[in-house]
């Protein structure tokens, strides 16, 4: 091989920088992918964790901020009109909300990716009177990292999650028990 075929120092340096840039890009992408996967695998907000802060605008136009509910037991129920299992617990949730009308226990319904017409029809069908509103931009469900509907979170007065129910409550008693447990932890 003659002299001219040898790479010059500048071309060698360029190549090295190019290699470094490619590796940085690849590692950056892998890091992003890893973060996304970790976030996806995290699962819902667990018992003992702080309740994520959120603001719910109800179908009646009322704005409810979770921060304003500190000191109360809060039951956040995620539902949708197209969700058949949600129907199993709808009437019981309303009954429970009637049992706890002392203002120390607050029920909130978060309507997950739904259409307003069907959501209102659903609320009317089950005679639900406690505050309900759409999860605009799925911000609340993302904050709670829900995996589906129905899911319910009972929050103790200190703002920590007292219990998580994945799937529908099976009876009124189950709802009452979870609320009482949250109250007892006060």
């Amino acid at each position, binding site marked *: *091989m*003659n002299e*001219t*075929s040898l790479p010059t120092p500048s071309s060698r340096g360029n190549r090295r920088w190019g290699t470094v840039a*490619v590796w940085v890009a690849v590692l950056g*992408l892998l890091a*992003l992918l890893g973060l996304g996967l970790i976030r996806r695998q995290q699962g819902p907000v667990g018992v003992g964790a702080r309740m994520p802060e959120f603001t719910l605008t109800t179908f009646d136009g009322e704005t409810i901020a979770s921060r304003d509910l500190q000191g109360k037991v809060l039951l956040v129920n995620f539902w*949708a*009109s*197209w969700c058949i299992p949600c129907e199993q617990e709808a009437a019981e949730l309303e009954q429970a909300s009637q049992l706890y009308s002392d203002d120390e226990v607050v029920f909130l319904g978060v309507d997950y*990716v*739904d*259409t307003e*017409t*069907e959501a209102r029809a659903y609320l009317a069908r089950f005679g639900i009177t406690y505050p309900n509103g*759409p999860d*605009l*931009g*799925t*911000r609340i469900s*993302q904050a709670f990292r829900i995996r589906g509907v129905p899911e319910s979170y009972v929050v103790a007065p200190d703002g920590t999650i007292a219990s998580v129910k994945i799937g529908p409550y099976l009876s009124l008693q189950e709802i009452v028990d979870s609320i009482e447990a949250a109250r007892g932890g006060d």
Partner: protein
Amino acid sequence: MAGLHTNPHPERLPLHESKLRGWSGGAGGGDEVPEGVGGFRPSPLQENPSPLSADGRWGKRDTWRRRGGQGGEGGTRVASLLALVTVGLMLAFSPGRASAQEPTPSDDEVNVIARQLYCPVCENVPLDVCPTQACAQWRATIREKLGLGWTEQQIKDYFVAQYGDRVLAAPPPRGLNWLVYLLPPLVLIGGGLLLWQTMRRWRRAAEQAPTPAPLSEADPYVQRLEEELKRRG
């Protein structure tokens, strides 16, 4: 064609009947062919609804025979052609070509927007083909908004506000979403450059590779080979 099966004008004849009558013509005269078809007038066959002519023979064959006898085969063909054209024209402009009323806005109009959106609760299913009840509700929402005069962009913005960016088939170019738009062309350009550099290096290496020396007559192996070839040949 659906229009052929329903005849909202019972005073007119369905196509197959009028054509048959025109061809057969009963009396069999060449001039009667367009007349029977085009005029929707009672043809002689209305008294004899069979495709057979009055004398019991197939009208069409009978007509051919008679025309042949008159030596007017070419004229008959022209007449037949005219009849077909007339039938075609009448079909095209017939008010009987009614079809089912499309809902307003139509499914096509709804689907133009629906295929740009994804089902918020299913994995990677465009809204226009999603079979779930939830998707049917969302398509109904699109129809409702279109009916209210909303534009395509307004409807898409509404869906994003309700369900987040993930409902969009193409993510909005902001934040990390830029990677989706920048990475493919960058990888393509980078790959092209790499390929070009590699090929250039290969070509240069091939050019600079030492060429094999021509076989020398003085090479003992060549001499032996030559001798061996001579001896065998």
